[in-house]
């Protein structure tokens, strides 16, 4: 590492690490820890956290239930239009959240494409907690589906074939072979999507509005409190940082667990992969 190139690498890395860590550290130094904890128990913070957890959990259930079969299809089947479908599924990853918000309004708003049909059923999405859930599903689902599809694709197809030849239907093969083998990756994608959902801001404020106790999630509360009570904003921010770090840690653990566990949860499965690789 003493070569000029080595020094360059070390220098760039030090710079990057300092740049990324400094704002987060500064957030915690901004107010004393005691005040930070105090602020977290304030009504504003508690209300926002409850809204955030409720909507994120609701959205996450939908993402898992619908996203898992989609990811399985994308990860294990080759069909016409697959590339297009992958592009569509992943688009929200790169779409500015504000655009997602306007797009959701254009589709599901009271004057949107489906607004009239929804109204016929007595449903009006904007300004409701359901709207927050819709916004979160829209922006966070790609994080799960992407990772889940990759995990399903990494499952040895010979194992799935073996399961089928041994008389298991496709549904049972999915449940008993593919799902357990991909579980670690699915969980990692799941935590990433949950974290992204919890941080959702742009689409929510445009599509769902901001009302304490109903649609004002933690990120929206940070924005609302910025000019009212800066300490609450900082405290909520710090909490979200802690949460993000926890998600990263869980994800790393889960991914390393998959790598070791995909070798041997099923003796039968591992013997096949051993024999094929031998």
């Amino acid at each position, binding site marked *: 590492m003493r070569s000029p190139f080595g020094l360059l690498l070390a220098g760039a890395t030090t710079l990057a690490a300092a740049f990324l860590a400094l704002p987060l550290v500064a957030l915690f130094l901004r107010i004393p820890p005691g005040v930070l904890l105090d602020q977290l128990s304030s009504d504003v913070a508690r209300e926002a956290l409850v809204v955030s957890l409720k909507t994120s959990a609701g959205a996450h259930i939908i993402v898992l239930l619908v996203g898992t079969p989609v990811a399985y299809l994308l990860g294990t089947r080759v069909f016409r239009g697959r590339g297009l479908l992958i592009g569509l599924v992943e688009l929200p990853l790169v779409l500015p959240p504000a655009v997602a918000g306007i797009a959701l*309004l254009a589709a599901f*708003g*009271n*004057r949107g494409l489906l607004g009239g049909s929804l109204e016929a059923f007595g449903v009006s999405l*904007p*300004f409701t907690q359901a709207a927050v859930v819709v916004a979160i599903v829209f922006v966070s689902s790609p994080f799960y589906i992407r990772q889940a599809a990759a995990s399903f694709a990494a499952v040895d197809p010979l194992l799935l074939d073996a399961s089928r030849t041994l008389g298991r239907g496709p549904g049972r093969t999915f449940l008993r072979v593919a799902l357990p083998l991909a579980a670690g990756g699915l969980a990692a994608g799941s935590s990433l999507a949950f974290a992204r959902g919890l941080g959702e801001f742009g689409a929510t*404020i445009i599509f*769902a*509005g*901001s*009302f*304490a106790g*109903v*649609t*004002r999630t933690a990120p929206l509360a940070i*924005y*609302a409190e*910025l*000019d*009212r009570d*800066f300490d609450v904003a900082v405290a909520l921010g710090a909490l979200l940082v802690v949460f993000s770090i926890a998600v990263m840690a869980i994800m790393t653990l889960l991914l390393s667990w998959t790598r070791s566990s995909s070798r041997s949860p099923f003796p039968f499965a591992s013997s096949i992969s051993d024999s094929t690789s031998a």
Partner: protein
Amino acid sequence: MLALVAGCGSDGGEPLTVYAASSLTAVFEQLAPDARFNFAGSDELATQLREGAQADVYAAASPRYPGELHEEGIVDEPIVFATNRLVMVVPAGNPSGIRELDDLAAADVRLVIGGEGVPIGDYTRELLARAGRPDVLERVVSEEEDVKGVLAKVAVGEADAGFVYTTDVRAAGGDVEGIELPSELQRPIEYPAAVVREAERGEEAQRFVELLRSPRGRAALRAAGFGLP
């Protein structure tokens, strides 16, 4: 004097930097096309100035924040240069048929107002209290961070009504309709401007504030729908 203001920035230095309430966007850009503007909620701008933002002039939609900043030694004595009125807005065509304050109490009305601590939000709450209709607040479905947020939710038709400044209705063009509110419920909404104490271009800042009170400034403000002090 106008030439001096209009010519700021032409000497190659940084242009005059003005932090102003969103509702002043059109008229300020017209008065000083060469200046650099930061238009946002008055409260948000005050936070930025407290955090050390570099600005020369601060113009707010409420005396509260310039007053606070003056006490904190961040800006000079604020001078009121315009006044505004609250007005109710409904989407173009008024689909919900809202004509007056009392109509807002209907159960299916979706009302959008400014949040607490945001000038437009505080004025709205004050007006409803004075009208004896604080119950209308139960129809609020969203509390926005600035006038723009309120106006946008009404303009796209998601909200049935909202409260903004009368000048915003003109700025929004044909997307919303304004419904005047009784004068006795209103109190004059004062817009003060102040030179930032650590302004890099203090003299130009002073001239900009004077421009706002000059005949040309007053004419432009009046044309935009502002009242004059």
